[in-house]
């Protein structure tokens, strides 16, 4: 069932159309204005009018259901309010493209080094390659990667215990490690795609051979309104290498992430006039467009599309000015900038993205999705030269991440922001070529921190080789469910009639790591 934004949205006359509403940044989304289904009209559509409270929400203003897709009484589109008391209001989603080795980051497996050079079959753990245990891997895209790698490759870095929790974290991530007591590591993740389609899978919960689903960010955007009417509510920063760029899918393009660049001069597509057009002249132009459109709305009094378009132009004009300000760090202290590594060439780019993320969170943006590592199917895809690869890339991301956690914490924002660090899969204990690791869907690690998440927690475990997740196994949608729960959303309530989701799409919240 395609949900579309109708050209017909009826605003009850007694509701005034606010041109702009400001909310203090710490307030959870206010209820949107719900226009009840009209009495006496054909029971055809259930409307929700979001009168300009949201960015993308604004205008669209409304969503509709169709006849036959449940009776209007049974189904209403989300009203922008959480379904239960939320613990967090924003998400910073850090995704490392290509596949971070769990063995060189958050899952210490000394047995791999101990048996290095042996085939897995020669170790006491030969059973990990029992075909029955490999069966979850599903119809991969075969390109000579994503295969079984039999000869164990020693760990390429050392591990140390950190914080009061004594969490083991590799020496590639010292700044993250400093925050060990703020994060909850899940070491027992699994997925099914042994190739980079797993990137899409991590975001949508579905294998690339399945019908494409909305991404988690799309669902959050769909389910929760906005707390800021000057900024996009779902932002994508950084390169997406391998996965479909449409987040909203059947929720509609209004729920796609808005791609942003951390460049105050040019942060948005079409974010400034592509031909000379002085700001004052443009202001006159937007005013005239608004004026003329209001004339039209007199002649076509019941055309909500015109009302929505008027509001969208007003927002667009503001966005042109508000977005560059967020990605302009002139008002950040030097100390803060250093905290994110902006003074260091190797982590400046990622540091700027994370600092921008914090600034967006401060302004109430819901979901900031940051992808790290371009090139090929993702920079972390260390089929060869793993040590140099992970050393260099962790140097680029680790200090900014540590800085982000500390900066959020000291500003009191960490309590209401979830930070996720993830990748599409782990990497094989066995070596690929001389010095690489291949794709490994059977086990990998992610961590979360912030609102609703316990700190200093390690959850789940892999076997001695880090081959299979064996304790408290979690499919990727359990991460989705955890985040949705922290945001106060129930994914089953968000479901759209006619777009049946499966139990595995919904996942189960990982309560063990939730505060």
């Amino acid at each position, binding site marked *: 069932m395609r949900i579309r934004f109708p050209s017909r949205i009826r605003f009850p006359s007694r509701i005034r159309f606010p041109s702009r509403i400001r909310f203090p940044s710490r307030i959870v989304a206010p209820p949107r204005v719900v226009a009840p289904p009209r009495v006496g009209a054909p029971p055809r559509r259930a409307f929700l009018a979001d009168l300009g409270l949201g960015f993308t929400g604004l205008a669209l203003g409304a969503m509709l259901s169709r006849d036959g897709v449940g009776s209007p009484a049974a189904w209403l589109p989300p009203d922008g309010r959480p379904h239960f008391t939320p613990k967090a209001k924003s998400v910073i989603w850090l995704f490392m493209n290509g596949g971070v080795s769990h063995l060189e980051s958050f899952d210490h497996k000394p047995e791999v080094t101990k048996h290095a050079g042996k085939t897995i079959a020669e170790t006491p753990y030969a059973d990990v390659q029992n075909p029955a245990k490999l069966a979850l891997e599903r119809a991969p895209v075969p390109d000579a990667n994503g295969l079984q790698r039999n000869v164990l490759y020693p760990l390429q870095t050392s591990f140390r215990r950190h914080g009061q929790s004594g969490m083991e974290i590799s020496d590639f991530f010292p700044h993250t490690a400093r925050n060990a007591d703020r994060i909850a590591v899940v070491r027992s993740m699994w997925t099914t795609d042994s190739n980079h389609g797993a990137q899409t899978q991590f975001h949508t919960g579905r294998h690339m*051979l399945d019908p494409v689903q909305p991404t988690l960010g799309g669902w959050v955007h769909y389910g929760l309104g906005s707390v800021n009417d000057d900024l996009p509510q779902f932002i994508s920063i950084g390169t997406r290498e391998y996965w479909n760029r449409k987040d909203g899918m059947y929720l509609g393009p*209004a729920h796609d992430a808005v791609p942003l660049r951390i460049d105050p001069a040019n942060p948005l597509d079409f974010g400034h*006039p592509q031909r000379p057009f002085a700001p004052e002249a*443009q202001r006159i132009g937007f005013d005239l467009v608004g004026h003329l459109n209001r004339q039209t709305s007199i002649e076509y009094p019941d055309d909500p599309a015109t009302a929505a378009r008027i509001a969208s*132009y007003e927002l667009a004009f503001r966005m042109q000015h508000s977005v560059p300000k967020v990605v302009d760090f002139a008002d950040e202290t030097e100390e803060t900038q250093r905290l994110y590594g902006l003074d260091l060439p190797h982590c400046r780019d990622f540091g700027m993205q994370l600092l921008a993320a914090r600034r967006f969170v401060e302004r109430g943006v819901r979901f900031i999705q940051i992808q790290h590592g371009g090139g090929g199917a993702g920079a972390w895809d260390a089929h060869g030269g793993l040590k140099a690869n992970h050393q260099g890339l962790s140097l680029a991301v680790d200090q900014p991440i540590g800085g982000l956690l500390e900066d959020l914490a000291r500003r009191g924002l960490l309590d209401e922001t979830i930070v996720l660090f993830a990748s599409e899969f782990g990497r094989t204990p066995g070596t690929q070529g001389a010095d690489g690791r291949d794709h490994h869907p059977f086990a990998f690690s992610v961590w979360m921190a912030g609102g609703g998440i316990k700190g200093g927690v390690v959850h789940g475990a892999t076997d001695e080789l880090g081959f299979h997740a064996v304790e408290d196994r979690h499919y990727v949608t359990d991460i989705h469910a955890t985040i949705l729960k922290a945001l106060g959303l129930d994914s089953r309530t968000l479901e759209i009639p006619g777009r049946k989701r499966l139990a595995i799409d919904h996942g189960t919240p990982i309560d063990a790591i939730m505060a």
Partner: protein
Amino acid sequence: MTTVRAATSTMLAVWAALLCAAALPAADASAPALLWSDGLKKVFADRCFACHGSLAQQAGLRVDTAAALVAGGASGQVVVPGDPEAGSLLARVTHPDPAERMPPEGEGEPLSPAEIETLKAWIAAGCPAPPDEQPERDPRDHWAFRPRVRPVVPAVAHPDRVRNPIDAFLEDARGRAGIAPQPEAPRQLLVRRLYFDLVGLPPTHEELSALLADTSPDWYELLVERLLADPRHGERWGRHWMDVWRYADWWGLGDQLRNSQKHIWHWRDWIIESLNDDTGYDEMVRLMLAADELHPDDLPKLRATGFLARNWFLFNRTPWMDETVEHVSKGLLGLTMNCAKCHDHKYDPLRQEDYYRLRAFFEPLHARIDVLPGEPDLEKDGIARIFDGVPEVVTYRFIRGEDQRPDTSRPILPGVPAPLAPHEIMILPVALPKSESEPERRPWVIEAHVAQAQRHLDAASAAHAATPTPLTEQAVAVTVAELAAVERRGTAMRSAWAVEDSSGVAADDPRQVAAKESAAEAVRAERQLVAVRAQGTLLESEVKLAAASDDAKAAFEKVVADSRNAYEQALTAVAQPGEAFTPLVGARWTPTRFRNSSADDPTVPFPTTSTGRRSALAGWITDSRNPLTARVAANHIWARHMGQPLVATVFDFGRKGTPPSHPELLDWLASELVEGTAAGPHAKPWSMKRIHRLIVNSAAYRASSSTAGNPEALRIDADNRLVWRREPVRLESEVIRDGVLALAGMLDTRIGGAPVPAGEQAASTRRSLYFHHTDPDRNAFLVTFDGAGVKECYERERSIVPQQALALANAGFVHDAAARIAAGIEAQTRQRGLGSEDSTFLDVAFRTVLGRPPQAAEAAASTAAVGRWRNLEPAPADGSVEPARIHLVWALLNHTDFVTLR
């Protein structure tokens, strides 16, 4: 006393159930029957009816009425009224083992605790139900599955509201609701509608002025005919059908093709041409599904099979087949067959096996590219098409839809769902002409290869003539050898065919002798080419050696030695006899990698017969007795003209879909499409132009879209389901971009050709449907305005988001166009002697961009803005258009009425 207490506890249980059954609508406890009819029945409908209702009665059990549930199934009673502990139902729905629990795993979610409590309470209350409860109707009796019968056009009370039978059907429904339609829209809006709707571009100011001045009574009808005959009509409606038929250009990783096919744009051009020729809808469907069987060797028609080649997927047959099954069903039949991939369809009479029976029609498919006259390089051009490459591959049902779990106990044969089959289908193998299995026999193939070699020779000669060097001389030698080799191979091929095509040619027959000789010559020529090339390599390496520095000399000496060695070997080979030459290529199989290795699969040869499966399927789909095909097509056409479909779920005409708002109108339109009895042009069966003509000539199409002056209709039917006014329609993204360029006279009007790659789109002025269309590199402007989805696009989104405002306000081409439009208006007013006042400019600008003059308030606001702009940026001294006027045009392009068809 005991009885009373029992009754009381029953009532308490009912209340308790109500209190915890938050998901269920509240029922009146004084009527426990409502527990069933308002609550449990819905739960059962979602979870149980598919197997225990009208579609199927597994274990002999139906649960679609309380009486049937109480009656039980083959194993006896499943509920005992009044006694929740007796009967197996509660035990089954609460069973801890998922294998025993109902509904079975994967078929539906288990009942919630609240639902189970309600069920208990209802059983305890004695399973009460409304007295007149009806079982589910036979699914075959669903409106869309019943044969289509041409309805009688109703007589109406207001014949003045009727321009053609469409209006009679609409007026009939409106009359029953007691509402009147809106009057006709002003002529200027009608003209704008017809242009955008039929050719996808705005009228020029001159065209509009002429039409407004036209006093003939049939100006409208004449305009309709003119626009339907306009070749831009095929581009406009081509894009619509490309949405439905899922046009997508090729996609891959780097140069590696992974999805769709290279040069698939020939299919797009075929769509445009076919629509302009008014090729019947049935014929278009037949060709898209089976042109290779129906018209083998007819390359122009074979383009149509891009419809199937588009789903090609490098790594795995199943996604290719899944997309084909899903979208043949949704797009052509309005069936959600995809819902039956893992289990029987929950709503429609489609068994899981039907899914795989439909897949079996397509199972033998592979894709290939055929050489076109004049271009033998298949990377540069060629016809992307399908063929039955692997007829021996067996289709199996996948258990629970999992492709690792085929049910190999029973092969699945091609077939259509029995309840929908209006007639038997017969599958007969199709013998293919030789030119299909040996495409190099096509008369232009050898010519094309020779011409290409000649072009190479000409280019090398020209380069040598310009600046002769030893290397250019060598290059000429290579191309001479190449031409000779190509010619000799062509000769050898013709000689071989001469033998092959006549029976009983003796070994000493001159033809046989000639064939052997020409083959030997071809071999020699090929080897000579290798030798000349090796000579060239040697020469190049010697040149490099001569230029090398001392410390690099050793390395280059090694290269020279290797090259010399290769050259000498090649020379030796020339002297040796041989008969196996490389034939020139007439088509190339598109290699798949289904075998899960990183190498191409073994080449699939071109067969001499085709299975005939797809032509049989195409015959069934396009049979006039098929209840779905014409209804689905008519609904698509109606929706794109009128702004909302008659059947809201355009790809689901099944029982889960929405019933038509005007069933008789839909059937009448479908009948008109198939039979074509309406008088006038386009009388042939399945003519789409006839349907366009009917719809746009209706009073409904011509009505105003405003609600003003009709509060009664607005009160009764705010959603306009009764079509008492026209829907305002937001233009599609392509039309917005094309329209801006057209108004500025910047639009490149060439029809067809290779798509504009992503990197060239910003500077391109071609119509948007020619932009390379695939997911990773979609054009940002088009995407912002809800451009066609690549995976599925049965209806366009119509979002209104600020990014659209940014795109239209800031895109460079909009500013460029505004300047051109403003200059054009000034030139025009000068030419017509209208004066250069702002008021004149304003009037023409409104008419040009919005198709209407400004109203007083609009003129005042615009004049004021022009004044403010003028203060900021004075008029340039050179007399070119002043910025203030350009900005005014920019503002009109951003006007809601520019992107809206009122």
